[in-house]
Structures are given as structure tokens and as C-alpha cells.
């Protein structure tokens, strides 16, 4: 049955091909029909055949044409250009019919394709097919600056002026050190007068230069100007209920990113943690994990794949390593009260056990907060690579549709002197490749625990 059906499209192929492989191709269809039983398999087979037709037909005709027309058409026997005509044969009725059907299928699929492509666009950015009403909606994407996805708008002098003024104004208004804020504003104005910004038309480069210049004056690595290609919302949206529900579900599915909680040989507790999740969602998981490691004689925190997140979880876990409240430096916290660990933790026996933190160049943000604090308090040995050096931008201020800046509004004095880990990262105590960090830390820890066993 289907081989007869396939005999029709087979006629679309060039005569040579049909003569050479027609019988084989029909045999192949017979074989497939014999082996592929069931509706779905059959359907897939026919879809495959259609795709195959679309791809291989043009190729077979290309193969025929150059032989007839190719180089020989260009040069005659005496080297002069000449023409040859192909033997004329009118197209067969079957070929015309199938050509017509295929064209209809392809034409009718175009609107579907367009609709399908439209779905991939990020919300808020009007696409090329957006209706005029949608594109001019003032709540849409920042009025005149709205652009189609994938194409960054060029900066003009007016926007550069606006951004520089807004940076200076925000610094004067919010920066903790007023004199320093004025110095930065003066510096920016000088750079601008010198024409340093005149040739900058790319948003990211402009933001980077402004960041560099205000840091040069203030030496404050927590100051940052950022550029966002997507228009920034008027007011930073807090976590919506949907987003929290999504986060909760993701955390449940991943065991709150507590990837491994194990007791290794020599009674070494091993915790591989890939973020510092929100305590109201993951507090119980964190407490259960720490309880499981409670009998260990040493503890290894593996933060090599940890990208950070909530400072409260950093404080919650750090509390297990002390038997009294300890000041745990947190540059992001505006009040000092929340920088004290809630130690001792009832029932906890880890407060005086040796601790090791495994780090890599991908250890970021909250994970650097944890590593830096423990290193500075000499409470843990950091083993691995220098950490990523994530900048925590304090409070975020919107400058215009595409520019914003982070300003630390209250200065929590770093007891260990600036800088902390922002930009520069945290240096480990024992520098080894991240891949070797666990073996190294295990060896260090087992030296301690096995001496206890004696």
C-alpha cells in the first residue's frame, strides 16, 4: 500500500536517479513498512519521507544540471562561449500535481511559522509584527527607546549627558561619604569636559568606564554602574507570589541545593552546597543536614559550584561553627545587629571541630561571603582556587531606561580592612586546582581526626 503511495513522489526525482535507485528505494519503503508497526512509527516514517523529499529533490536536480550545463556551457571548442540546450520534454502531469500540492502545503505553513517565531520574543519588547497600538503603548518598553530584540540601541550625546548627571546626583544624595560623593561628581564632570565620552556609543562600554572612574576616586569596589539592554522596570519588583512558588518548587526538587551530605572515612563530615537558599524555604533542610553531620570530627564545606544567594542562610550555617555569637562581616547589611551569628546552636557539637571550605573560580557572592568570613576569623581553612570576586551592589538605583547603579548606603566597617572579596575574590589558604581540592582537604582533615583516634 505505502510503497504504491511512495511511487508517486518517487516520480519527482530525475530519470537517472529513478532508473538507478528507484527499485531500491521502493524496496527500502517496503522494508520499513514491514518493521515499523504501530500508528506513531508509521506517522514518523511518513513525516521523515516528506522531509527527505524536500531535502534530496533539489540536490538530485543540482546533480543533473551541472553535468548538462556546467563548464561546457561556458566554453565552446574554440574557447568562445557557446550554448547548449537540454532536450525538451514537457513536465509529466504527476510531477505538476505533486508540485502544486507541495507548494500549497508550504504556503499554508508560513503563517504558522511566523506565529511560532513570535512566541520566542521576550515580553515587553514589541516585535517587528507588533500592532502600532502595542508598540506605542507607553507602559510597554520605554517609549522611543523600544527596539526589537537582539539590536542594542546606540547611545547619543543626550543620553550620555543624562546618565552622567544622574550618577552624580545619586552619589550626592545616597553615598555614605558626602565629601567623596562630591569628589566623584567633579571627576566625572572633568572626564566629560575632556570629551572622553564623546565617541562611546555602546551602553556596556560606557557603564564600564563610569564604574572604573568612580572607583578610581573612591576605591570603593561596591560602587557599580550597570547597563541593561532590556528596559529597566520603573520600580524594582519584589518577588512575586508566582516567582516564590516557582523557587519553592525548584528548591524542593533539588533538596535545597544540598547536593551531598555525607560522613566520609575518618569521620569527616562532607557537605556539598550549591547555593545559600532562602531560610524560610530551606531552613529545615539546612538544619537536618547539619544534624546529620553533627557526629563528625571535622567538616568540609564544598562550595566549588556555589553561586551564592541569601545572606541569612550564610549566617544560619556559620552559626554552627561558633559557641558564642561572632561578628560575621557582611558588606550588604545595613545594620550591624544582623551581622552577629546566632551561636551557640542547641545540641550542636561542630563549634570546635576543624572546618575546611573548598573554593573554585566559580565560587560566587554569598559563597564568598561565607568563605571570607570564616577565613578572616581563622575558623576555617580555605582549599582550592581564588573565588570569583562577585560585586554586591548595595542598593540599586535606576538612572534611566537602560542604566542603573549600585550604591552602598551605609558603610559597615570591614574589621579586616578593605578590600573584601568584591572584584578581587578570596584567596584560599591552600592553593590547589579546584578538581584536587576535596582530596587535599580530606588529607588535611584526616590528619587531625586520625590523631584523635589514637
Amino acid at each position, binding site marked *: 500500500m505505502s510503497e504504491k503511495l*511512495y511511487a508517486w513522489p518517487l516520480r519527482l*526525482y530525475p530519470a537517472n*536517479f529513478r532508473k*538507478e*535507485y528507484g527499485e*531500491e*528505494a521502493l*524496496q*527500502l*519503503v517496503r*522494508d*520499513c513498512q514491514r518493521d515499523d508497526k504501530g500508528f506513531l512509527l508509521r506517522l*514518523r516514517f511518513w513525516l*521523515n*519521507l516528506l*522531509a*527527505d*523529499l524536500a*531535502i*534530496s*529533490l533539489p*540536490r*538530485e536536480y543540482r*546533480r543533473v544540471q*551541472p*553535468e548538462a550545463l*556546467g563548464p561546457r556551457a561556458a566554453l565552446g571548442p574554440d574557447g568562445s562561449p557557446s550554448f547548449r540546450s537540454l532536450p525538451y520534454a514537457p513536465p509529466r502531469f504527476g510531477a505538476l500535481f505533486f508540485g502544486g500540492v507541495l507548494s500549497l502545503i508550504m504556503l499554508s505553513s508560513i503563517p504558522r511559522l511566523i506565529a511560532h517565531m513570535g512566541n520566542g520574543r521576550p515580553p515587553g519588547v514589541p516585535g517587528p509584527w507588533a500592532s502600532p497600538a502595542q508598540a506605542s503603548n507607553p507602559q510597554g518598553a520605554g517609549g522611543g527607546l523600544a527596539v526589537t530584540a537582539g539590536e542594542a540601541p546606540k547611545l547619543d550625546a543626550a543620553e550620555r549627558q543624562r546618565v552622567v548627571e544622574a550618577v552624580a546626583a545619586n552619589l550626592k544624595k545616597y553615598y555614605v561619604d558626602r565629601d567623596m560623593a562630591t569628589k566623584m561628581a567633579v571627576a566625572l564632570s572633568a572626564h566629560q569636559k575632556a570629551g572622553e565620552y564623546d565617541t562611546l556609543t555602546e551602553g556596556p562600554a560606557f557603564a564600564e568606564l563610569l564604574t572604573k572612574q568612580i572607583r578610581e576616586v573612591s576605591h570603593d569596589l561596591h560602587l557599580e554602574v550597570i547597563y541593561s539592554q532590556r528596559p529597566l522596570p520603573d520600580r524594582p519588583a519584589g518577588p512575586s507570589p508566582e516567582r516564590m512558588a516557582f523557587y519553592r518548587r525548584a528548591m524542593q526538587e533539588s533538596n535545597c541545593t544540598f547536593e551531598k551530605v555525607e560522613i566520609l572515612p575518618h569521620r569527616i563530615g562532607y557537605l556539598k552546597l550549591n547555593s545559600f537558599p532562602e531560610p524560610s524555604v530551606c531552613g529545615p533542610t539546612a538544619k537536618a543536614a547539619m544534624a546529620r553531620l553533627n557526629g563528625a570530627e571535622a567538616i568540609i564545606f564544598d562550595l*566549588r559550584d556555589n553561586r551564592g544567594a541569601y545572606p541569612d542562610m550564610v549566617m544560619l550555617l556559620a552559626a554552627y561553627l561558633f559557641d558564642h555569637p561572632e561578628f560575621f562581616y557582611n558588606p550588604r547589611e545595613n545594620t550591624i545587629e544582623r551581622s552577629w551569628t546566632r551561636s551557640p546552636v542547641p545540641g550542636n557539637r561542630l563549634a570546635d571541630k576543624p572546618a575546611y571550605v573548598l573554593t*573554585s573560580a566559580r565560587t560566587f557572592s554569598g559563597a564568598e561571603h561565607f568563605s571570607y568570613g570564616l577565613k578572616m576569623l581563622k575558623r576555617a581553612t580555605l582549599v582550592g582556587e581564588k573565588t570569583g570576586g562577585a560585586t554586591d551592589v548595595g542598593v540599586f538605583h535606576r538612572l534611566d531606561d537602560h542604566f542603573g547603579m549600585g550604591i552602598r548606603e551605609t558603610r559597615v566597617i570591614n574589621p579586616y580592612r578593605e578590600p573584601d572579596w568584591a572584584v578581587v575574590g578570596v584567596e584560599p589558604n591552600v592553593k590547589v*586546582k*579546584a*578538581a584536587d581540592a576535596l582530596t587535599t582537604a580530606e588529607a588535611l582533615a584526616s590528619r587531625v581526626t586520625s590523631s584523635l583516634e589514637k
Partner: protein
Amino acid sequence: MPKRKLDPMPSAAFEILLALTGDDLHGYAIMRQVAAQTNGRVRLGPGTLYGSIQTLLEGKLIEEVDRREEARPGPERRRYYRLTAAGRKRLRFEAERLADLLRVARAKKVLRGEYV
């Protein structure tokens, strides 16, 4: 002309060469072998399959084998294909080229592998 068609080598042609490294196979068996070696991802249709076979024959990377004596009597006489020495050499060359690309992808951390 065949040289031009196979340079760069289309993936269908590469898959067919790879399928023929073992036994001599007929068209349908090649199709099955290609599906098996790509976990069912690539299913060559008759047009692509025989078009590629023709190109590979022209490029002398495979040859047709006479296996009439083994064929069952009746209409189902099939043509079998075998990798030539040139085909095997070309296959190794292509595989090495892919391996080089893979090394670059690893080095650029496109592929997750051991962290270096």
C-alpha cells in the same frame, strides 16, 4: 566534481561511511545502522540515502559489492556496499577533524567536562 560535493563532507555521507566500517550492508541495513549509531536521532530517507550513496560511489569512497551468490532467489536482489581504502582514510580524516573541534569546545568550556 565529486570532490567538491564531498568537501565539506555532509553529515549523511559521514554517517554512511561510519555505518560501513563493519560488514558490507545494503541500503536498508545502512539506514538501520545509522539510526542505531545515532540513538535514533538520524533516520535517512530513501532520497538522501541513495543520493549520498551515489555521491560516495562517484568519489570512490565506497564500492558496490557483488553478492549475488548469497542473494535469495526472487525479486529481492539487493545491492551491497563496502568501504574502500580511500573511504576509510577519508573517514579517519573527518573523525580527526571532529575530534579537534571537540578539543576546542572542551577548552572553551562549551562542553562540561573535568574542570581544569
